[in-house]
């Protein structure tokens, strides 16, 4: 482990070389939009919303997985990045069936909030209206594939924190879908402990409590970092009690 110094949006900052650029930026008050990232879970760089521009590199780097290098000059919000982020949200919107007005997560949805923050007013690509189903076979929870953005937070929290590995990603490309067990109805999967962690971390209305009505689903995610810290360090501290965590 070494300390490196770098520049983020003109700000001279320092950080450990085993931290991510996202972590260093946030420690210094620089906000970068994220969707698949969640404090406490392994990062996978899936959503590409946190892409950064690094001077001297033609590649854009995801902040959640990229590591700092001495003397690096990083930009987090150039016009090009803003354009890309907007396009990513447009593609997510067109690829699923996101009807905010009648969704359980309306007004509490990370995707909806991101759409607002990137200034999304309309979608320029055709909507695909895929024929997707919901799985209500679990006695307490529901998985609605129409609203899933494949961030895989549910897969990771179930594997890494609960240890059950009930969820996985099935199929490929645009046909990818979150599957329970070996693609069986959720209610039939014996590994599921019904802990509800996947529901809590889901950024949209894809996973929700059975019985939830329009705009009634509010999620808490801070417990993940709390549990992970407690296991690793035997320190039961954290911001689990703070409301409005993201």
């Amino acid at each position, binding site marked *: 482990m070494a300390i490196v110094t770098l520049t983020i949006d003109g700000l001279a900052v320092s950080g450990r070389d085993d931290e991510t650029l996202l972590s260093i930026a946030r420690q210094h008050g620089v906000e970068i939009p994220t969707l698949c990232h969640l404090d406490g879970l392994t990062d996978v760089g899936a959503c590409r919303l946190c892409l950064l521009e690094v001077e001297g590199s033609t590649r854009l780097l995801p902040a959640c997985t990229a590591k700092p290098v001495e003397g690096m000059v990083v930009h987090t919000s150039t016009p090009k990045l803003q354009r890309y982020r907007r396009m990513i949200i447009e593609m997510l919107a067109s690829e699923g069936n996101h009807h905010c007005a009648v969704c359980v997560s309306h007004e509490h949805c990370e995707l909806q909030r991101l759409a607002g923050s990137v200034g999304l007013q309309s979608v320029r690509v055709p909507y695909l209206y895929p024929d997707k189903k*919901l799985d*209500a076979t679990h006695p307490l929870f529901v998985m609605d594939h129409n609203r899933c953005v494949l961030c895989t937070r549910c897969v990771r929290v179930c594997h890494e924190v609960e240890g059950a590995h009930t969820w996985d990603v099935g199929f490929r490309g645009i046909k990818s879908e979150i599957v329970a067990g070996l693609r069986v109805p959720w209610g039939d999967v014996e590994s599921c402990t019904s802990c509800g962690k996947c529901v809590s971390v889901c950024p949209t209305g894809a996973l929700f409590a059975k019985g939830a009505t329009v705009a009634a689903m509010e999620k808490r995610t801070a417990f993940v970092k709390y549990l992970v810290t407690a296991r690793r360090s035997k320190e039961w501290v954290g911001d689990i009690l703070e409301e409005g965590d993201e």
Partner: protein
Amino acid sequence: MAKTLTIDPVTRIEGHSKITILLDDAGNVEDARFHVNEFRGFEKFCEGRLLWEMPGITSRICGICPASHLVTSAKAGDEILAIGIPEAADKLRRIITLAQWVQSHALSFFHLSSPDLMLGFDSDPAARNLFGLIAAHPEFARRGIRLRKFGQEIIEVLGGRRIHTPWAVPGGVREPFTAAGRDRLLAGIPEALATTQMAIATLMLMFERHAKEIPAFGNFDTMHLGSVRADGALEYYGGTLRLRDADGNTIADGIEPRDFDKHFAEKTEPWSYLKFPYYAPLGPEKGIYRVGPLARLNVCDFIETPLAEAERLKFKALGGGAGAVNNSFHYHYARLIEVLFAVEKLEQLLRDPATLDEHVRSKASINRHEGVGATEAPRGVLFHHYKVDDDGVIQSVNMLIATAQNNLAMNRAIRQLAKHHLTGVAEITEGLLNRLEAGIRCFDPCLSCSTHAIGQMPLLVELTRADGSLLARRAR
């Protein structure tokens, strides 16, 4: 030579439609049809969704009476959960149902129909709308707008928003009522009452002014269907269904909403997306019935509040004694009597301390696979019928809307008006168009897509020969 007259679109109603008049070789009216040319598919795309989402989804059917769909859907959900809802939730749902009556009926009378009644059927169509009304009778229009606002305000205080609130849910409602909300709403009661009484007095003057026209304004015999309480009182949220004929004889009584499909059937016609329900034992011809304010006042034995009951007795007299009131023009009067009842009853309910109880939702999982909810929406009895699987996923949806139940009667009303005002000459006069539209407006049909409350849509009339070629066209 046989000809067809087309009025497209029909303005100042909620939704999209047109009227065609078919003339025979002698130029006499053979038939007249009210076409509903919008298709929405709610019943289909609700399949596969969850029961608990249905109130929020179906309230989106209409921006005029979302609260009616909301509450009816929640009641169908109660049936499927097979639970009793808390007393406070029952009373709060009653309040929002009456608020829906107030705002929708005020809209129908003041915004949509008053321009015809107050400015005259033959006044300049460019000014025969809400703005023309505001110019000619500013105080009358202002009070009407405020009455509608009062109804909307109740919905907002209870549901958090005026339009498309998801507040009612299977098992009850989501949020308890507050004393502050109650006090705010009670403060609006005196003005709402005074405005309604003023509207009734104004309508009495209109009876005199249009005395020659009224007898042919959709005046024909049909049965009437509406909800009544166990003691025969006018009902709006619960109760059972009663069917009476044009002479006031009770044909069927005590019909539970869940049995409606055993008593009523629907036929379809290739020229309209709106289905034609009828009372099954009598078949599609004789089984014609009307729903809504006129029908409700015809089927009930009394109204539980004093001012509205006094008006109901005057209303009954219009039918000449024991028989029912069969003239569709009197929908207007019945509608205003219902507003009077709603305002009186709202005051009673708002003063009831039970509405402030904080226990407003019972919870359960799926205990039945089928449920029917019914309430009296402003335009008539509304049914939501759902079938679900063990997990609560919707397998089928059937919604029977009030306007559909008036479909046969609306067609008969325009046929009567066309025959009365189109005699011998195949000429499209302004007067004819205006009366046909006004005839439809008596029923206050809600075709549930958009509101053309300011009457700005163009009116297109086409006169075609039997072979379909155009004979004449008139637009405004």
